[in-house]
């Protein structure tokens, strides 16, 4: 029995001819005397060989062109992270200044969205996003432009952030939104992995804030957000809507240790204005 446990792990090295002559011999001898191991060896060998019969996936030479494009964009644009970091730093400064000068919050929010759209347009035209869908943005813009409501739902669930962003933007142009799309937008606002997509969903939903359901979901979303940019946008919206129910959620947020200091002061300020 002990011998069997030592022999079995050697099967694969045997298939790959990685064993020494001695090891091979001892394995073969054992198989002749142990029917248990022999039968396991045979079935495993059969599976192993059938795997070997799977055809080799063909590689389309277009990947070389794609690589060259990726490399050129990288060299033109520089590392992406630095760019995003700059972007975030700019936003933080921007908010700081706004906070000090007491600009009308709704204006700040709109301006921010314009800034983001502008930056993203520039950004996605150059560098791939985190998912690496480098070659996708051209194709996706065509798809999104042709989208109807049904497609929109699919596009909102695309693995590619630029596609989702376009889908959300497109929802603004529809004459009416049915509850499935509203629900999808709320899901996007709360769960999308990309800050910019969540922001865009927020912008779309804020147009529907007269709807009690949407408004309730917007309030609840406060505690779902981790990103300072989205948090600040939501806080400003609450102030604009004069939504007193948000105070309870603000207080929950203030209890978090991880809360960004700009967001923190924003909340304190807003609570005062609402209260």
């Amino acid at each position: 029995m002990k011998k069997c446990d030592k022999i079995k792990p050697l099967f694969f090295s045997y298939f790959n001819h990685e064993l020494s002559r001695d090891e091979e011999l001892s394995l073969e001898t054992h198989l002749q005397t142990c029917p248990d191991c022999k039968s396991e060896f045979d079935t495993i060998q059969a599976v192993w060989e059938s795997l070997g019969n799977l055809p080799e996936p063909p590689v389309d030479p277009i990947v070389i062109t794609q690589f060259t494009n990726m490399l050129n964009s990288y060299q033109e644009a520089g590392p992406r992270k630095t760019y995003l970091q700059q972007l975030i730093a700019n936003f933080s400064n921007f908010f700081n200044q706004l906070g000090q000068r007491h600009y009308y919050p709704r204006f700040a929010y709109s301006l921010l969205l314009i800034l983001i759209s502008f930056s993203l347009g520039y950004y996605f035209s150059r560098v791939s996003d985190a998912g690496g869908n480098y070659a996708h943005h051209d194709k996706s813009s065509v798809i999104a432009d042709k989208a109807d409501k049904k497609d929109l739902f699919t596009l909102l669930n695309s693995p590619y952030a630029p596609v989702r962003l376009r889908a959300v933007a497109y929802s603004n142009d529809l004459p009416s939104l049915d509850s499935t799309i509203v629900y999808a937008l709320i899901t996007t606002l709360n769960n999308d992995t990309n800050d910019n997509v969540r922001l865009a969903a927020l912008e779309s939903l804020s147009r529907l804030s007269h709807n009690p359901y949407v408004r309730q979901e917007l309030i609840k979303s406060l505690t779902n957000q981790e990103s300072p940019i989205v948090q600040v946008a939501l806080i400003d919206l609450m102030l604009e809507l004069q939504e007193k129910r948000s105070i309870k959620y603000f207080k929950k947020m203030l209890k978090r240790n991880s809360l960004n200091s700009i967001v923190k002061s924003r909340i304190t300020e807003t609570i005062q204005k609402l209260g």
Partner: protein
Amino acid sequence: MNYNRDANDLTDNSLMEKVKGGNAQLLTVLFMRYHKDIYRFIFRFVRHKEESQDLLQTVFYRVLKYKHTYKENYEFRTWLYQITRNVVSDNFKKNGLVYYSDENSLADKADDSLLIDQEIEKQQQIDSLNLALDKLSFNDREVIILSRFQNLGYVEIAKILNSTEGAVRVKLHRAINELKLILHPKSTK
């Protein structure tokens, strides 16, 4: 491709050192050396052409993005496979376990009456094997793909998986048994 011809004589590691030093263009040489293996590795997981092409670019993009983390004593190929593994696993986490049907699967060829019986049988075997691989866990699939299709030794696979040679053999043994059970559910252990 305008890299120096001599660059082809450089080892992987010294090329990567130069890439790290700022000569991103030399990544082209490494891309030409490994893109087929890496593409096939990815394709065995996602089995979708465009998706695999995207992920392939992501892998090499990450090589550039994380070039500062490359250390002289790393074996480039091992490091590249580790990056690929992360890219594929991120993709799985993001998209969930979504499977694409194989573009060459029998279902798509069904109306092709020119298929002779032998070909049909062969294609059926391929389809059922691919289906069975789909049903495996990510880790089981990974160890099978690495050891069966990538011509890597167990020592290197162990390094890629941050494991030991012995543990890899045990994992592989278990994974193949799992696959066998999916293929032939009636057979006993």
